[in-house]
């Protein structure tokens, strides 16, 4: 069933702050096998001009995707999450995420399309720090594949 177009433009309340920890960044960098010292050594990060270790570019998705859960689990929207696949992902960074950040996310439904029975949902996540400064925007395209005819 096609999703309700009236949800386009809807924004969800800001998430509770996510506090970015040094060891969480280290864990993520190790999981992707990336030895860049800017992720684990505060002195190396300072040499690049950052106050503390920074996170790999895609780390912030772990935060924005959790925030997007407000959208995909919205019972009024009625997305069939069991059929959802990740279509596209894009980030635009004002600055890198760094240890000590307390980040909140506001998720907005940018577009809803229906194509060959698939529901396509574009969600924008605006990430701000504790001071209210913009850090990064994440665009996530989710595709709910058409259910097979029973």
């Amino acid at each position, binding site marked *: 069933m096609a999703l309700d177009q009236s949800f386009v433009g809807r924004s969800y309340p800001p998430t509770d702050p996510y506090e970015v920890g040094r060891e969480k960044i280290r*864990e993520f960098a190790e999981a*992707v*096998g990336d030895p*860049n010292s800017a992720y684990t050594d505060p002195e190396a990060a300072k040499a690049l001009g950052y106050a503390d270790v920074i996170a790999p570019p895609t780390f912030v998705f772990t935060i924005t995707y959790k925030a997007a859960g407000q959208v995909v689990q919205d019972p009024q929207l009625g997305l069939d999450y069991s059929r959802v696949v990740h279509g596209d*992902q*894009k980030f635009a960074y004002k600055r890198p995420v760094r240890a000590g950040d307390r980040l909140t996310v506001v998720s907005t439904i940018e577009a809803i399309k229906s194509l060959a029975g698939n529901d396509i949902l574009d969600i924008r996540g605006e990430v701000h720090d504790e001071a209210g400064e913009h850090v990064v925007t994440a665009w996530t395209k989710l595709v709910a594949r058409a259910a097979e005819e029973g």
Partner: protein
Amino acid sequence: MAANIAYDDIEVGTELPAQTFLVTRATLVQYAGASGDFNPIHWNEKFAVEVGLPDVIAHGMFTMAEAIRVVTDWVGDPGAVAEYGVRFTKPVVVPNDDKGATIEVSAKVAAKLDDNAVRVDLTAMSAGQKVLGMSRAVVRLA
């Protein structure tokens, strides 16, 4: 921000050093834990097959994380990445053996932009198939 690469030294068509990344089942379990994405299609073969996949597949975001390393290793400062986007076109299928799968990433400078930025276009292949489409990053150089 402290990029290692000078904007003036770079031309459209400049190739970045290509890299090949290995991904095994153990890699996927580790990434699931670090990212919080515990979707069973990334670790449970039975479940993956039931939902129509050939086998366990890598997290798309894992592939996205590996591909940008070609850019961040080149430029030195990961914070120099201003934009990064991909389309997930094909899954990276990860067999249950000690070899796993490989993701081969190549990249080249596609355009010189204002403010010392360049656009880099990335290609990511696994088992002879293109696994990322429209894969582009904008990076600020020195």
